[in-house]
C-alpha cells in the first residue's frame, strides 16, 4: 500500500536574490496512515513551515507533497489543524466553537450533536460546553480546540505545537487526552514540537529535524505499546530514545 502522505524533495525558500533565505529542506518523508509522527527540531528549523505546506496553506518552492495519491496544490480540507494560539473565537461558547468547524463546512451541527458532546466528554469539558473561551483556563481552551479540530473526523491532523503555551503540569495531563483522542479514531497525526519527551511519549515515529534549513536527520520508530501513561517515562526504552535524540541535538550544538 502506498503511504498516505508522501513528501518528495520538498524545499522552501523565502525572498529572492541576495536576500534569499533557505527555510526548509530538501526533505523526503513517507507517512503511513494512522501514524502519530512528531516533527521534532530546534526553533526556526522550518517544522511549522512544513506543516503549513502539508495543509496546502503555503506553496512548496520545489518538490511535491502527495496526499492520498493527489498532489497538494490548494488548502486541504480533509484535515484538522491546530496552532499554538488556538482558533477558538471569543463570541462563541465551547460548543459553538466546535460547531463552527461544522458550519464552515456546510454541515448541520444539529445532526452532529451526539458527536460534539461525545468529544467534549472525552476531554472532560462537558460541564463547560456553554462557557465562553475566556472563562476557561489555557489547558481547557486547548482541549476545546482539539474537539474543534477533529469534530469533522478528518483523516489527517496537523498540530503545530498545540501545547506550546501551557505550563508543564497542564501539558502532562493534556498529552494523555490527546493520546486517547488519537487512539479512538486513529487519524494520521503530524505533531510539531520541540519537547523531546513529548515527542517520544506520544509518537509512533519521531522525525528529528536539523537546524535551519531543516532536513530530516533521522526517523525513529518508537515501539512502546499504546496507551502510554506517565509510567512509560521510567521504562528503559523510553529513556534510551530520549537519550538518543538528546545526543543528536547535542551534535548540532542546540542543547
Amino acid at each position, binding site marked *: 500500500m502506498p503511504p498516505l502522505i508522501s513528501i518528495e524533495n520538498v524545499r522552501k525558500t523565502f525572498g529572492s536574490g541576495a536576500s534569499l533565505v533557505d527555510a526548509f529542506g530538501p526533505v523526503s518523508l513517507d507517512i503511513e496512515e494512522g501514524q502519530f509522527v512528531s516533527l521534532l527540531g530546534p526553533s526556526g528549523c522550518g517544522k511549522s513551515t512544513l506543516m503549513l505546506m502539508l495543509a496546502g*496553506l503555503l506553496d512548496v518552492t520545489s518538490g511535491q507533497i502527495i496526499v492520498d495519491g493527489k498532489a497538494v496544490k490548494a488548502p486541504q480540507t480533509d484535515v484538522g489543524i491546530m496552532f499554538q494560539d488556538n482558533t477558538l473565537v471569543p463570541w462563541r461558547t465551547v460548543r459553538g466553537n466546535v460547531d463552527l468547524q461544522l458550519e464552515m463546512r456546510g454541515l448541520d451541527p444539529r445532526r452532529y450533536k451526539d458527536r460534539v458532546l461525545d468529544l467534549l466528554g472525552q476531554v472532560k469539558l462537558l460541564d463547560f460546553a456553554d462557557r465562553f473561551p475566556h472563562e476557561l483556563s489555557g489547558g481547557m481552551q486547548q482541549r476545546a480546540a482539539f474537539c474543534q479540530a477533529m469534530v469533522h473526523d478528518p483523516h489527517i491532523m496537523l498540530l503545530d505545537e498545540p501545547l506550546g503555551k501551557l505550563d508543564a503540569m497542564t501539558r502532562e495531563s493534556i498529552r494523555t487526552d490527546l493520546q486517547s483522542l488519537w487512539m479512538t479514531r486513529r487519524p494520521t497525526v503530524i505533531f510539531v514540537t520541540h519537547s523531546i519527551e513529548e515527542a517520544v511519549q506520544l509518537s509512533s515515529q519521531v522525525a528529528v529535524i536539523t537546524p535551519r534549513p531543516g532536513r530530516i536527520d533521522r526517523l525513529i520508530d518508537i515501539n512502546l505499546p499504546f496507551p502510554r501513561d506517565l509510567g512509560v517515562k521510567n521504562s528503559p526504552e523510553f529513556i534510551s530514545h530520549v537519550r538518543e535524540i538528546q545526543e543528536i541535538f547535542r551534535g548540532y550544538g542546540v542543547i
Partner: protein
Amino acid sequence: MATESSDQSNLGAKFGALVNQSWMFIIFFIGFFLVWEYSVVVFDIPKYILTPPSDVVRNGWADLPKLLYFSYITGLETLLGYVVAIIVGLPLGMAIAFSSVLRRTIYPFFVCLEMTPKIAFAPLFISWLGFGLLPKVIIVFLVCFFPIVLNAILAFNSLSEELTRFCRSTGAGVWRTFLRVRLPAAMPQCFVGFKYAAINATVGAAIAEFIGSDQGLGFYIQIVTGNMRPDLAFAGIFFLTLIGLLLFGAVTLAERLIIPWHISVRRVRTT
C-alpha cells in the same frame, strides 16, 4: 440558576457597589458646583462674566421651550450626520479592507484627509448649501466619517493568521467566512470608531451652527453670549452635552448588545 428574588438582591448589591465606587465622585461633583456658586458671590464677579449655577438653572428653565426646540434641531443634525457616516463608512471600510485596488487608491487619500481638520470645510459648505439643515449634516458626517472608515479598515484587516488559516482549511467560501468569522471578529474595532465618532459628532454640529445658522444650540450659544448672558450660554452647553451623552450612551448600549463577549464590555460571570 438565577431566580427572580436572587436577581433583585443582585440588583441591590450592584447598586451598593455603584455607591461604594462613586461616592467620592459624587461629593466632588457637588463640591465643584458649590465652589462655583459661592465664589461668584464671594469674589463679586459681574453677572455678564460668570453666573452662578443656580442662575443657569433658573433662567435656563425660563427659556426651556426654545432650548428644547434648538436641542431637537441640533440633535437631528447630529444624529443624521452620524447615522449616514456609519451607513457609508462601514461598507466602504469593508470594501477598502478587501480590495487591493481600493487600498492603494482611496485609502492613502483618506489618510491624508484624516489629517485635515474637517471643521475647516464648514464655511465652504455653508456658502455652497446655505443656512439650512443639509450643510450641518454634511459637516457632522465629515467629522464622524473618517474615524469610522479608518477603524473599519483596520477591523476587517486584522483577523489573526491562525483564524485565517483555519477558515481556509475548512474550504468555506468567501461569504460564509465573512458571516461566521470575519464580521464578528471585526465588530470590536468597528465600535472603537463608532464611539470616537459619537464623541465628536456634536462638535461638528455646534461649530457648523456657529458659522452660519438661524437655529440650533450653536446659534443659541453665540447669540446669548453676544447679549452678555453667560447663564443661558451655559444652559445651551448643558443641552449640547446632553445630546452627546445620549448618542454615546446609545452606541455603548448597542456595543453591549452586539458584542457582549468582548473584553471591553463583558462582565465576569458569577454563577
